[in-house]
């Protein structure tokens, strides 16, 4: 298996060099670009597994570039931005980016995100492509783009990255028993996330968040095996 190819679009030369070096050290093939036009040239140079894209670029900014890429390709995109706010993150994700990393970031965090996304793509973008934007169950709705969960009454319910990934795993396998080990494997896509709690803690937290006054969360424990998500899931 060849090393994954990454296009890195960053206008600050030293940061571009540093980031490229960090990625290379971790075994990725990097094609650096300083602007939109250079990025398109890099696209033509060969297959691309992932794009790391700075949001604030001279000329065509990262957001417009992301839109343009999405018109042609489903290649995973990680935004890096000097704007750290949640709204910017959501805008980026809405546009079809797969993750959003605020500056300053460390190599460990960047690599973890890249690995997580590449793994997610490997797992999910197989024959059964799950890049649809929404899923519904018991009145709850999940927006995968924004990584957002809404209650039956329309309120946003905070989930951590790990919790969201866990919920995503459950939603991909509704009404089927999932072994603990399999769940760990499915949900461990976010190593950069601070939570390294055991899967049971994650499940209990998710249960608490999905419960309501009149009914418990639709996650049952199958003793000795794992868990089951027993609600009907409809996808849109």
């Amino acid at each position, binding site marked *: 298996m060849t090393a994954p190819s990454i296009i890195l679009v960053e206008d600050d030369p030293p*940061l571009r060099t*540093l980031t490229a070096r960090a990625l290379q050290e971790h075994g990725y093939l990097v094609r650096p670009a300083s602007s939109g036009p250079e990025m398109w040239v890099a696209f033509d140079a060969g297959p691309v597994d992932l794009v790391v894209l700075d949001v604030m670029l001279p000329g065509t900014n990262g957001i417009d570039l992301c839109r343009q890429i999405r018109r042609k390709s489903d290649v995973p995109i990680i935004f890096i931005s000097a704007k750290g706010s949640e709204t910017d993150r959501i805008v980026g994700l809405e546009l079809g980016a797969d993750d959003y990393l605020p500056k300053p970031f460390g190599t460990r965090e960047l690599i973890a995100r890249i690995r997580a996304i590449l793994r997610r793509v490997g797992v999910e973008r197989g024959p059964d492509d799950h890049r649809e934007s929404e899923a519904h169950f018991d009145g709850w709705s999940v927006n995968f783009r924004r990584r957002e969960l809404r209650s039956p*009454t329309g309120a946003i319910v905070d989930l951590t990255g790990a919790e969201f990934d866990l919920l995503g795993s459950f939603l991909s396998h509704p009404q089927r028993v999932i072994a603990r080990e399999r769940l760990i494997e499915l949900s461990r896509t976010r190593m950069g996330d601070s939570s390294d709690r055991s899967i049971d803690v994650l499940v209990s937290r998710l249960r608490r*968040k999905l419960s309501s006054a009149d009914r418990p969360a639709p996650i049952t424990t199958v003793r000795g095996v794992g868990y089951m998500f027993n609600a009907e899931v409809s996808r849109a």
Partner: protein
Amino acid sequence: MRWRLRGSIGLLGRLFAILLATVTLEFAVGTLIYERASQLSLQDDEARRLAEHLVIARKLLSENPSRERPALSFQLTTDRYDVHWSPAAPPPPPLSPGLERMRRQIIDWEPSLEKASLWLRLTPGRHSEINGGLRLPDGSWLYFGMHHSGGKWAFTIGRMGLALIPMLALLIAGWLLIRRTLAPLRDLTHATHRIGRGVEVMVPEAGTSDVRNLITAFNAMQARIHRLIDERTETLAAVGHDLRTPLARMQLRVESVADPDLREAMSDDLDEMGEMLESLLAYFGGDSEPESPVRSDVAVSIATVVDAFQDHGHDVTYDGPDHLEMTVRALSLRRAVRNLIENALHYGHRARVSLERKDGEILIRIDDDGPGIPRDRLEEVLRPFARLDEARQRNTRGLGLGLAIVQKAVAAEGGTFLLANRPEGGLRAEICLAAPRSTGRG
């Protein structure tokens, strides 16, 4: 609008115009009352008695020689009627309302008085409300006055009322007009109170030209202030964002430092700088558009923040409902709770977070077991860049914006933020928000 602007007169002019209008109206109404006096009438029997008395007096006086007439007229004077005789013609009729209707009543009873050129008038005097005169056949004059006995009060009150009603009406009209004229000034005062609380309060231009000029100047000043603030915010945001790129470079460079202690220390410094930038941008705005309120589950948000602290090994607990849905600026509120927990852990060792719905209020409390804050400094710590550590020789990270950010976030929700020393020791930070009408989950 344009023509009104040009044609508008000053505040002084407007007030003068109101004064002029009231005075003119008063004059007009006064004249009308004067006219109306001719409509005053006497009761029938009273008119007849007066007519009879006049006929008798006229007959007696004219049948007696001139020198006996004064004495005779004295005899003719009763409780009710004054009678005088004068050989001279009447003085020019003073400016008092003629009582045409009353005269007609009297003449109807005694048509002979018509020829004697009977005249009547209202007098302002105290004794007789009505007096008049009539000519004797020899050209001398009989004057009489009538004490109005029976209907005296009603008559007087009627007259006063007639004068009072328009006066009151004019007072009210004048008050309303002046109030209307000054209304734009009131708006301006209200706007001034609200200025500097974040939103631009444009006052509609209305009123007289000088008030309008004041409002124009006020709005322009406000626009200038907001432009200044915006410029500062933009500058700050630009600096903040630009600083993050070199910070990112340093972060990556630090990783190649061989000495692990040095690497750790530098990495820590970088983290702190990043946090400082973040709190600066959070406090002054500029990282993004102001957040708008959305319906979100506050209980879950708080629990999530608490979970994150627990994952980092801190002693933080959450006590409260699993769900509580409210429309709030969720990110700001979450940041506020995080700041308060950080503070609690900085000054104490543990944080007890609770969420409670009580008497139409939502209370979010963060209790710590630290030393608390001296009573006289409780307010001071809410100010931006304030810190208590100078006095306590303790090392604090950040810029001292933590509580100021909380204060701002809570104010944006229309809530209150309180710090209090707990009697059992430690500090209690309390965020109090108005409860939503329904918190149920369908």
